[in-house]
């Protein structure tokens, strides 16, 4: 009778210990999957696992609604989540996130518009203008800004745009000659009026990054607004395309800790590592999206070729415009409704 008792006790104790050990030293990070998460794994997760001696498990999230479902149902399993900064601004207003402790997470070197009480910018992506080199620019005349994107007489051809007002309104205003420095608050009526002039030439309204890359690869569109990382991947895959960073729109993804995250103290330490100049620079080595931490460009990790390639390097950033997540967090829902009506008219 004694032996089984001892054995089962031992197993029980071991299990308890394993479980508690696992609980203390593991976090679950959720991101967008694909090439993005591969880059985050190399730059953030692996080095942080080593430095903090923890295990970082991964999951994928499609957006704010995934976070909302977890927080609302009171069963939060994610410790850190990557979504778009615009969604972070909305989720923050709805109180879905834990506050970030800026004694642990060092935010110097990060643009203040990316540092908030309960979310922090993570990397920049750019919406740029690209064109099909098979059909555009054969005569040596290439489009140079959004005004050209809207000029269907000078540059005939099919346009493809993101099926979402964010970015499209900014682009319409820039094309209409609005000073980039005075873009916000957006003159919505003027933007939709300008958009209406382009509508007959918009052949395809894309709604996922993968789709936009496919459109430029297949030559389905002559001019397209596209995220620079997707475009770079398509071009490496043989897409016959060119693009310009001129008047590109800088947008960001963010990191957040969901309200009630199971390991939020550890998550805070991991987040501090992710935001450090070294890891931020390493991230840009693996993907064409640029670090939010400007100090990343001083680490020496990124060489001249990288600076030319990465969208948020000082050289490339100066010709681009920063999209206001504040404004979109405030007006996003209303604009999506108006966008849908505009499309159906």
């Amino acid at each position, binding site marked *: 009778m004694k032996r089984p008792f001892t054995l089962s006790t031992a197993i029980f104790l071991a299990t308890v210990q394993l479980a508690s050990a696992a609980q203390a030293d593991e976090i679950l990070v959720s991101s967008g999957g694909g090439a993005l998460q591969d880059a985050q794994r190399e730059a953030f997760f692996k080095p942080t696992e080593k430095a903090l001696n923890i295990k970082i498990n991964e999951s994928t999230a499609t*957006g704010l*609604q995934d976070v*909302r479902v977890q927080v609302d149902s009171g069963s939060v399993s994610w410790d850190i989540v990557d979504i778009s900064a615009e969604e972070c601004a909305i989720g923050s207003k709805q109180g879905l996130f834990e506050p970030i402790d800026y004694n642990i997470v060092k935010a110097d070197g990060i643009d203040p518009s990316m540092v908030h009480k309960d979310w922090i910018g993570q990397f920049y992506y750019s919406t740029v203008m690209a064109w099909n080199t098979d059909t555009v620019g054969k005569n040596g005349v290439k489009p140079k800004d959004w005004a050209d994107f809207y000029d269907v007489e000078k540059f005939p051809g*099919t346009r493809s745009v993101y*099926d979402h007002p964010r970015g499209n309104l900014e682009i319409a205003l820039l094309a209409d000659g609005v000073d980039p420095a005075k873009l916000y608050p957006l003159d919505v009526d003027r933007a939709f009026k300008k958009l209406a002039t382009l509508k007959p030439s918009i*052949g*395809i*309204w*894309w*709604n996922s990054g993968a789709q936009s890359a496919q459109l430029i690869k*297949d*030559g*389905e569109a002559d001019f397209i607004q596209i995220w620079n990382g997707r475009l770079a991947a398509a071009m490496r895959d043989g897409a016959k395309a060119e693009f310009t960073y001129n008047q590109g729109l800088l947008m960001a993804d963010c990191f957040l800790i969901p309200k009630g995250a199971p390991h939020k103290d550890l998550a805070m330490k991991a987040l501090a590592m992710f935001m450090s100049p070294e890891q931020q620079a390493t991230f840009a080595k693996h993907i064409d999206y640029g670090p939010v931490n400007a100090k990343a460009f001083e680490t020496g990790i990124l060489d001249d070729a990288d600076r030319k390639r990465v969208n948020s390097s000082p050289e490339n950033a100066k010709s681009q415009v920063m999209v206001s997540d504040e404004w979109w967090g405030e007006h996003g*829902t209303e604009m*999506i409704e108006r966008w*849908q*009506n505009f*499309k*159906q*008219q």
Partner: protein
Amino acid sequence: MAIAGKSHGVRIWPLAAPGIALVSFVVLPFLWLGGLSFIAGGEISLANYTRMIENSSYQAIILRTLQLSAIVTLVVIVIGYPTAYYINTRSRIAATFLLGCVAIPFWTSLLVRTYAWMVILQRNGIVNGWLQDLGLIERPLRLSNSFLGTSVGMIHIMLPFFIFPLYSAMKQIDMDLVRAARGLGASRTNAFWQIFVPLSGPGLFAGSLLTFVLCLGFYVTPQLLGGGNVTVISMKIQENITNYSDWGAASALGVVLLVIVGVLLFGASRLGARLGAQ
């Protein structure tokens, strides 16, 4: 009496299982969603429905869905009826082979077929390539990412749903009746239109109705082949949930779709009863 009652009870319980399943998986969720459609901003209101009347984009989307479904159903009838008729006139072996040809795409995933059409119809795709090689067109036509492309993809997907019920109805038709009409002096065309077509009516009817109703709920094909130019009800439902987390608005659209289908089925059953009585 007691024993009889007991055995009655035992006999009835297994029969209750489907009833319980129906109530818990169909009736309750429907009541739940139907109820949600009357809640907006945490209060009981008709806001989700008045928005559909006030906001013209909703009407445009509902009309677009009906239009797409009607066009697809019409073309499916035009292609499917002769196909089913032809199969019906063949020998058993040939008919089995031909039915197999109809069934193979039927068993292929809808997603795979939709992507195949994307490849076929795109600007540098097979169709445009041939048309250009033949010198029929100078510039590639916009076939994919359009209403046309969506229709083509849906027609291909819906054809088996139409052909199978129609074929089985045609098989039941006593061909001696057609022969008798011919023997009594009717021309081939007359015998076909006056005898065969009315007799195939129930199958034609069931097939078209099935096609139309299934078309109303299509999501994947308009999404992938429409290039953002074709917005149907199912896409608006999805948008209401993922963009706004607005279950009330999404449910209201579901209710509208259900009412449309209900009215159609009711009208169809009345019409069917009249056809049957003739």
